[in-house]
Structure formats: C-alpha cells, structure tokens
C-alpha cells in the first residue's frame, strides 16, 4: 500500500490512539481526507490523568485534551462526535454511521479501545456506583468524592489503587476489595505488590483481599457492599476498577480475526490489508519480545500503533520502543518498562523500605522488565537495554556502587 492509493482515511475511535493517527498523518504531509469518529463528546484526550490529577481536580478538561478542539478544523480533520460507527462493509470499503450516513475509505483504522467490565452484581446500577473509564465517569464521581465520604473500590489494579491514593489525599475513608490475595496480581510481582500494599495500608486504606463482593446494597443510592462471606461494609460510593474488555464488536461484525483483541501483524494490519487496528482493542506481536502476541492497555501502545499506521500510510517506517507504563500513587512514581510475565528471577537495586528502588525481571537469564519506584534512571536504562536487545546480569545491575548510566553504556 503506498500513499498514492490512499486518499481517504477513516479512523473509528477518537481516543489517544485514534487522535494520534490523525495528527501524525497530517504532520507527515498526508493531504487526503481524514475522518475521526468518536463516541464520546470530547475530542481526543489523555486517559491516564483521569485517575490522577483530573480526579484530584488539579487538571481541567482543556489540559486533558491532546490538542485544542480548534486544531481539527484548522488541519481539515473531520471530527465526528459523538457518533457511533455501526457497520463496516469490507467489500465496498465503507463505514456506516448511526443515522445511516456512509463514509468510504481507502484505509480504515480501528482504534475502538476497551470498555470497563461491569460488576456482575445486583445493585451495580444504583446511584453512587461507578465505572471508571471516561472523563464523564470522573465528572459524575467528583461531587461525591469529598472528605469523609466512605468509598469502596472494587479491584486492586492500577486504576483502583490510583483512585484509592487520590481518595486518601482528599480525606475519604477508603476500603479496597480484591478477589485475589494480593493487589496488582495481574501486573506485577508479589514483592512490588507487597510494597504498594504496605504503602496504602500506612496511608489508611483498608484492604479486603481474597474477598468477593456479593451485591451492592441500597434502595436508590448505594449504602454499602455485602461480601460473599456475609460481611457488610458501608459505602457512600463504589468505584469498580475490575479491568476492561477490548471493543471488538465492529471487527467481529465484518469477520476480522479476534482473539483477545483484533489480531494484527507487526504493522498493525488486520487480515484485511486495508484495515488496521491499534491501541487497547488490538493484539499484535511485540518485536522486542520474540514477537509474542499481546494486547496492551497503555499510552505507549496507543501512540506506537498510531506511529506505525501513519508511517505505513505515508510509506515510511517507525522505530519501535519497549513497552512502557507508569502509575502515580501518593509521592511514588512507578515506571515500568518491558513485559514482566513469565519471569523466573527478580533482583533489586535499592530496598523498598527506602521508597526508591527498582525490581528487575529476568527470564532464562535475559533482562525482560523493570518496575522502578522513584528511580527514573533505572527505568530508562532498562528500557534502552531492552530496545537494543541487550541484557545485564543481575549481580551487575544491582551493584549500587556503579551508576546506572555506566552499566547501560557498558552493556554488550
């Protein structure tokens, strides 16, 4: 596919991934039509601050936007909001919108994101029970998010713990319910999870671990949560952060391959050469990890997918990064590079008690990931090593007498 053949790009999904494709195409000199279709009323915005500065009230919607709304008109990007795409006809290469309008495409980008899982419980629809995905969700939560209010967070992943941290900083009483026996069970090691559990406990968060909610109590409004063991906890608001499911309805409707996200190749191309899939909804092989297939929910993945697609349409190539993530909780900045799954060895630089340490993950002797808490150098150093396909032995990397920069420079 070369630029000469592509005159009309339609992007379904106006989150960070979709927004970045449009922007990068224009920045790269693409002169054809770009349509960006989103279900939310707001132009593309950053989601990570929703559970951080935006929830805290430190960041306005204006600053959340990737770019001011006016830019889209100036750059001749047709921003269709809030509009739902309901049908893809691959044969005639058209997307149908609700209301019947049809948009022809030469290249189609699925950036449909993910939907938060709903609690499969009675009472989940009561006033005061919230999901946590969009700016509108947070706008609805904020009036209830006041000092003294009793908050129950269901799910101890990054979203749940970030919400708990902001809540404590705002003076709410916070209980976190998690069905696993430790927080962050899906996303980090027991050691790092234990560190965050200790920190939250010290900050006054109560945890119910290995406990499952049975129902959300209340007549019109939430008044509490009953656990499966019969215990009842009072609550003024309940926030569920129990993960997301990739939004693949349209991909399935037009018979594209789906397996934990829309299946793509390393160029983010689906089995239809005229359709790409990127961001939370897509599942692609990761070049730095032996082309293992993953579906990542992250800014890195959203931006990288956008870079790849824009470059492909423009007939260029994009440099790939090692996956990276971050989480802010209290005064702790957790920075993650790589993919830690299947690690067989963990090594530490610094000690958790000092609130500044890095956990390095190895698999078969090869460095595969880092969790760095207040240790940006260790984070960036490992990210660079992974990108270069290099590894440094644990006994070397944990030697604090040698600066990280030197260790990375010496790696072969």
């Amino acid at each position, binding site marked *: 596919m070369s630029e000469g053949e592509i005159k009309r790009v339609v992007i379904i999904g106006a989150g960070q991934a979709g927004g970045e494709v449009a922007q990068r195409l224009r920045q790269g000199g693409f002169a054809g039509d770009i349509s960006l279709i989103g279900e939310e009323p707001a132009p593309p915005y950053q989601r990570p601050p929703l559970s951080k500065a935006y929830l805290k009230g430190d960041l306005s919607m204006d600053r959340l936007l990737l770019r001011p709304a006016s*830019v889209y008109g100036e*750059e001749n990007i047709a921003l269709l909001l809030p509009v739902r795409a309901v049908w893809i006809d691959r044969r005639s290469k058209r997307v149908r919108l609700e209301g019947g309008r049809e948009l022809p495409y030469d290249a189609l980008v699925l950036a449909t994101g993910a939907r938060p899982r709903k609690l499969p419980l009675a009472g989940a629809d009561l006033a005061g029970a919230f999901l946590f995905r969009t700016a509108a969700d947070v706008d609805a939560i904020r009036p209830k998010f006041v000092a003294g209010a009793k908050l129950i967070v269901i799910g101890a992943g990054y979203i749940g713990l970030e919400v708990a941290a902001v809540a404590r900083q705002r003076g709410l009483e916070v209980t976190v319910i998690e069905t696993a026996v430790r927080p962050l069970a899906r996303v980090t090691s027991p050691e790092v999870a234990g560190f965050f559990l200790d920190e939250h406990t010290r900050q006054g968060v109560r945890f119910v671990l290995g406990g499952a909610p049975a129902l959300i109590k209340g007549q019109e409004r939430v008044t509490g949560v009953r656990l499966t063991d019969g215990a009842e906890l009072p609550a003024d608001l309940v926030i569920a952060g129990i993960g997301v499911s990739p939004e693949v309805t349209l991909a399935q409707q037009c018979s594209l391959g789906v397996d934990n996200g829309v299946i793509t190749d390393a160029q983010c191309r689906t089995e239809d050469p005229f359709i790409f899939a990127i961001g939370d909804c897509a599942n692609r092989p990761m070049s730095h990890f032996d082309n293992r297939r993953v579906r990542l929910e992250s800014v890195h993945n959203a931006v990288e997918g956008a870079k790849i697609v824009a470059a492909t349409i423009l007939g260029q190539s994009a440099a790939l990064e090692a996956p990276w993530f*971050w989480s802010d909780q209290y005064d702790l*900045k957790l920075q993650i590079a790589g993919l830690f799954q299947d690690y067989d060895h963990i090594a530490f630089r610094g000690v958790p008690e000092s609130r500044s340490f890095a956990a390095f993950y190895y698999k078969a002797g090869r460095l595969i990931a880092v969790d760095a808490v207040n240790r*940006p*150098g260790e984070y960036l150093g490992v990210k660079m090593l992974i990108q270069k396909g290099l590894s440094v032995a644990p006994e070397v990397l944990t030697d604090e007498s040698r600066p*990280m*920069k030197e260790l990375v420079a010496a790696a072969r």
Partner: protein
Amino acid sequence: MPKITYIEHSGKEHIIDAPVGQTVMEAAVKHAVPGIDADCGGACACATCHVYVDPEWLAKTGERNSMEESMLDFANEVEDNSRLSCQIKVSEALDGLIVRLPKSQH
C-alpha cells in the same frame, strides 16, 4: 499571554502563545510543534520533550529537578542547558523564552 519561541533542529521557528500555569511542553504539543513528542503527556515518564534552553533564559527557567536529571542522563546529546520541557512551568517571567529542539527525541 507569554510568548515562547521553539526552534526546530532545522532552524524553523514557532512562536506560540503559552498560557500561564501550563508547561512549556504542553504549549508546544497543543500547537503541534514538531520535535516535541511528549508521549506521556507530562508525567515525566517518557523523556521525549527534551529541549535546549537559550542560555540567556537559564536563570529564569530554574534548575532541573532530581527526577528530570535522572531521565536526562539517558537522553541523546544532552547539554548543560538541556531540560525536559514538561518540567518548566510557564509564567509571565518567561515571556520571550527561546528553546531549541534536539535532532531527535529517541
């Protein structure tokens, strides 16, 4: 509103009105100044908003913080006047600020 001049590595200049309270990175990204990626949106997580502060402005933009210092350790072609633009807050005192952009953020 303070004006900030961003000079691309090629020499191309962008003069941007930067709202007080936002960061030097945000003003650039919102106006699509090429050469500042800032993928993380200013969380000091990606080190892709590296700029060189014009020497005459160094005193007014202040010192690097420790997190920024560690991140810059791993950036390309770091100079004494290198900063992460997400860590420089726009104020009236920075009206006229000039920053230059590196060849690449990666």
